[in-house]
C-alpha cells in the first residue's frame, strides 16, 4: 500500500525542503509533516537494537535492551525485550490498530491501548514505530523559534477524530536547516502538558528498497511533565534494513523465541 507514496515522496521532498524557509503557509506546514513521516519510513523491513532507560524519583532505574522490527508497508511492528533476564522474551506486536503484549512467564497475550507505557517507561508505541504525523494529525503553523543554536518551525498538531493516538495534541519543533524534528511536546485533551521529548541526534542510512535515505532518531530524551523529575531515554544503537523473515509479525513467532 505504501509503495504508492514513493513517487509522491520524490515530488514532495524538494517542495518541502524549499518550503522550510520560514514562515510556512498551510500547504508548506502539511508538506513539512509529510516529509517528516516519509523520511523515516522504509519501504522494506527495518530492524533496530534499542537501549531504553527510565529514571524516576525514589525508584530504581529501569534499563532494557530490546529489538524493534518494522514492516511499514503492512503497518506491522514487533518489539522484543532481550535484557535484563527477567524481562527477556516479553514483547509487543502491533497489527493495524491492535497492540498486543506477550508475557513469556505466563504465555498470555493481552490487548493494550495506545497509552501503554512501554516497559513501564514514559515511552509509547509510537516512539518506536514509523512516523504517522501527517496521517494522524492536522497541522497548524505556530511560528519561527530558536531552539539552542537552531532555527526551528513550531507546529501544533491536533489528532484527527478517527486517529487512535496516545496524545491528542502535540507541538513539534522542526529544524529549518535539516528538516529533522528536534523537540515535541505532548498534551492531553484538556491541554495539560504530559511530556516533552528531545531528538538531539538523527542518523540517515541509504535504503536499497526505498532507493533513498531512511532517517531515524539515534536518541530520544523524554521528560515526564506530570511527575517532574521522571525521564526516559531511548537510544537506537544499531539499524539494519535487510529483509526480515516473512512470518516474523505473528504471535507464534514471538512465542517461539522464549520456548
Amino acid at each position, binding site marked *: 500500500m505504501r509503495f504508492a507514496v514513493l513517487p509522491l515522496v520524490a515530488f514532495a521532498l524538494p517542495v518541502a525542503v524549499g518550503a522550510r524557509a520560514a514562515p510556512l503557509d498551510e500547504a508548506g506546514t502539511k508538506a513539512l509533516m509529510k516529509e517528516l513521516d516519509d523520511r523515516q519510513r522504509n519501504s522494506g523491513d527495518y530492524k533496530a537494537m534499542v537501549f531504553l532507560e527510565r529514571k524516576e524519583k525514589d525508584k530504581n532505574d529501569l534499563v532494557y535492551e530490546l529489538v524493534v522490527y518494522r514492516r511499514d508497508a503492512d503497518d506491522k511492528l514487533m518489539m522484543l525485550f532481550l535484557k535484563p533476564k527477567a524481562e527477556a522474551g516479553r514483547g509487543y506486536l502491533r497489527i493495524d490498530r491492535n497492540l498486543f503484549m506477550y508475557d513469556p512467564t505466563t504465555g498470555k497475550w493481552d490487548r493494550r491501548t495506545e497509552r501503554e507505557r512501554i516497559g513501564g517507561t514514559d515511552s509509547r508505541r509510537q516512539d518506536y514505530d514509523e512516523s504517522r504525523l501527517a496521517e494522524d494529525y492536522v497541522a497548524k503553523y505556530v511560528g519561527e523559534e530558536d531552539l539552542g543554536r537552531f532555527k526551528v518551525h513550531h507546529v501544533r498538531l491536533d489528532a484527527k477524530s478517527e486517529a487512535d493516538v496516545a496524545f491528542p495534541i502535540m507541538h513539534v519543533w522542526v529544524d529549518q536547516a535539516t528538516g529533522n524534528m528536534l523537540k515535541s511536546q505532548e498534551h492531553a485533551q484538556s491541554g495539560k502538558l504530559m511530556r516533552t521529548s528531545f531528538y538531539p541526534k538523527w542518523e540517515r542510512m541509504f535504503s536499497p528498497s526505498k532507493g533513498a535515505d531512511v532517517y531515524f532518531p539515534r536518541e530520544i530524551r523524554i521528560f515526564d511533565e506530570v511527575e517532574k523529575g521522571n525521564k526516559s531515554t531511548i537510544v537506537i544503537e544499531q539499524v539494519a*534494513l535487510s529483509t526480515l523473515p516473512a512470518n516474523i509479525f505473528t504471535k507464534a513467532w514471538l512465542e517461539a523465541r522464549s520456548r
Partner: protein
Amino acid sequence: MDTLRLIGAMAWRNLWNAKGKNTLVGLLMLFGTFLVVTGTSILDSIDRAMTRSITQSVAGHLQVHSKEGRDDLALFGSGFMGADDLGLMPDFSRVKQVLLGVPGVRAVIPMGTDFFDIYTATEMDHAIERLRKALEAGDTARVDLVATRIRAMADLLRAEFGRRKQILRNHEEIDQHLAVIDRVRGDGFWNALRGPPSADDGTAGIEFLDTQLAPLVDENEGYYLQALGTNVQEFSRTFEQFELASGTMIPEGQHGVLLNQKFYDDYLRNPVARAMDQLRDDVVEKGKRIDEDPLLRAKVGRMSRQYRRITFQLDVAQSERLAAELRDFMPGATGSIDDLVQRFLQVDDSNLLPRHRFFFAEVAPLIRMYLFPVGDLITLRAYTRAGTIKSANVKVWGTFRFKGLEKSALAGGHSLMDMMTFRGLYGLMTEDKRKELAGIKEAAGLKDVDRDQAEDALFGEGAEVERKVEPKAGFDEFRGVDLAASGRSDGNGTFDPALVDKGLAMHAAVLLDDIGRIPEARAAIEQASEAAGLGLKVVDWEQASGIVGQLVVLVRGVLYVAIGIIFLVALVIINNTMVMATLERTMEIGTMRAPGAMSGLVRRLFLLETLLLGLLAGTLGAALGFAFVTHLGTAGIPAPTDEMIFLFSGPRLFPDVGADNVIAGLVAIVVVSLLATLYPAAIATRIEPVVAMSPRE
C-alpha cells in the same frame, strides 16, 4: 447513730412528701443508669467482637513492619487508593527468630499485601486463541469445534450490529464491521483457514479474526484481587476464624491462592446470576419494589444489557434448546436467542421470582457461573514499585471464609497467596539484578541530561543533529541472549517450604498467649527489635486495622459523648430541682436550725436524700438495663451495614451484661447525683433560723 437514724427518717419523709418532684428526678436517674449499663455492655460486647474479628482474621494481636516505611499499616484500608509503603523486612527469618524469643509471643506470621490484576479475555479472544493453538497443533477436530463456536458468536454479533445500524448514524463504520463479520460467517473464510498456508505467513485467517473481528466484542472488564501473601498453612492453623469453604488447602511447598468466598461470590460470579440474586434479596428480604425504586430499575437495565454473558457461552444446540424453552416460558416472545434472553432479563415485580427460579434451573447449568472454577490456573499480574509488570500463573486451590464474617465485605477483602508467589510478583530488586542493570547501562554509555538544562545541553554550541551512517550487513540480536531465562510459570512448580521464612516480608502478625498483655508484649518486642537492630515499628491490632480502627474509636467516642451529655443534663436538672426544692423548704430548714441544728446536719440530710433516691432509681435503672441487654443477648442486634457486620463479628451482635457494667452504672449515677446536690445543700446550710420566723408574704 441516733442522729443518723433521725436523719434517715427525715430523708425518707422528705422524699415521700415531695414525691412528684422526686419521681421526676428519679426517672432521670433511672434513665441515666439504664443508659450506662446498656451502653457499656453493648460497647464491651462490640469491643470483644471486634477484637475477635480483627485479631483472629488477619491482624493478630500485634503487627510489625519496617520503620523505614512512609505509611502506617492499614490492613483494612487506609481510605486512600493504592498499596501503602510499609518498607520491607528483607530477612523475615531473623525477625521471626528474635520475636519468638520474647516471652508471651506464640506465633509470628509473615505477610505482604498487594493488588493484582486477574488476567481475563473475552469469550471471542478465548476462542480465537484456542483456534490458533489447534491450528498450530494440526488438531482438525478441535479446529472444527472452535470454528463452529466462533461462527455462532459472529451470528450474534451480526444481529447486534444490525440493531446498532438502525439506531446510529455512522453507517459507514458499521458497514465495515458488518463486512468483517459476514466474511467470518461465510464458508470461504473457513475453507481458506483450513487449507494450505498462504504465501505470506500462513496465519492470515487467524490474524484477521484477532485484529478485525475480536475488537468488535467489547464486554471484557477488569478484575482486581487484593491478596495477602503469607505462610498460608500456618495462617490457617493460627487464625481461629479461618475456615476452608471449598476446595483444598494449598499443600506445603506448592504455589497457589485461596480466594475469599465473599470476593469470589461478589466479583467473580457471572454478573447476571449475581444481579438476579441481588434483585431477589432486595425485593424479598428488604421489601423493595422495582417499579418504585429507580435504583432497582437501573439494576434491571444493567442486567438485561449483560445478555451476552449468557448467549456467548452457548453452543448451537444449547442456544436452540434455550430459545425454545424461553418461548414456552414467555408466550408471545419472538426473535433471536439474544432478543429472547434480553427480554427474559427485563424483570419486573410480577415476574422476578419465577424468572429467578427459571434462570437457576434452566440457564445456569449451561453457563460458567464463575470467571473461573476452583482448581483452575489463573494468571495474576502485578505492577511492581519500579513500574514493571510481573505475572504468574497460579492455581486456585479453594475458597475460604472467616467464621461469622461471611457477609462482611471488609473481612472479604483479603484472599490468601503463598509467600513465594507473592515475592515473585513483588519483584524485589536483588544485588544480582542491580549488577545486571548496571552492566546494560554501562554498555550504552549514556550521559544523563537534566530537564532544565536539556535544550542547552542538547542543542547548544557545537551540536550537530544529523549524520550519515553506512548501511550494515545486519546484526544478530540474539547473540549472548537467553530468552527462556525469565522462565515459564506453569503454576505447578514446587519449592522448599523452609524458604517461606527466608526472604522478604512487608509486615508480620504477632500472636500472643494472653491478649491482656498487649502493652507489655509491645514494649518487649520494641526492646528486642532495638537490641537486634531490626528497625521494626510495632503497632497493636487496633492501629493496624486502619480505617476500621478509626471507625471503632469513633463509635466508642460517640457513645461516651452521648453518655456524658446525658449525665451533664441529669446533673443540671437534679441541681435545679434540688435548688428549687431547697428554696421551697426554707421554712422547714429554718425551723430545724432554730433549735440548734448545725449546718452539717442539714448538708448530710440533703446528701442522704439524694443518695437514697439515687440508689433506688439507680437500682431500678440497672435492673432494667440488665434485663434489656439480656433480651438483646438472645434476640441479637442486626448489623445494618458491612462495616457493622465486621464490628459485630457477624450479622447480629449478641451482647452480654456483666457485674462491672451494673456497678459502673450505679456508681456513676450516685456520684453525679451527689455532685448535683452539693450546691443546693450549700444553699440550705446558709438559711438562718430568723428566716423561718419571718411572716410569710
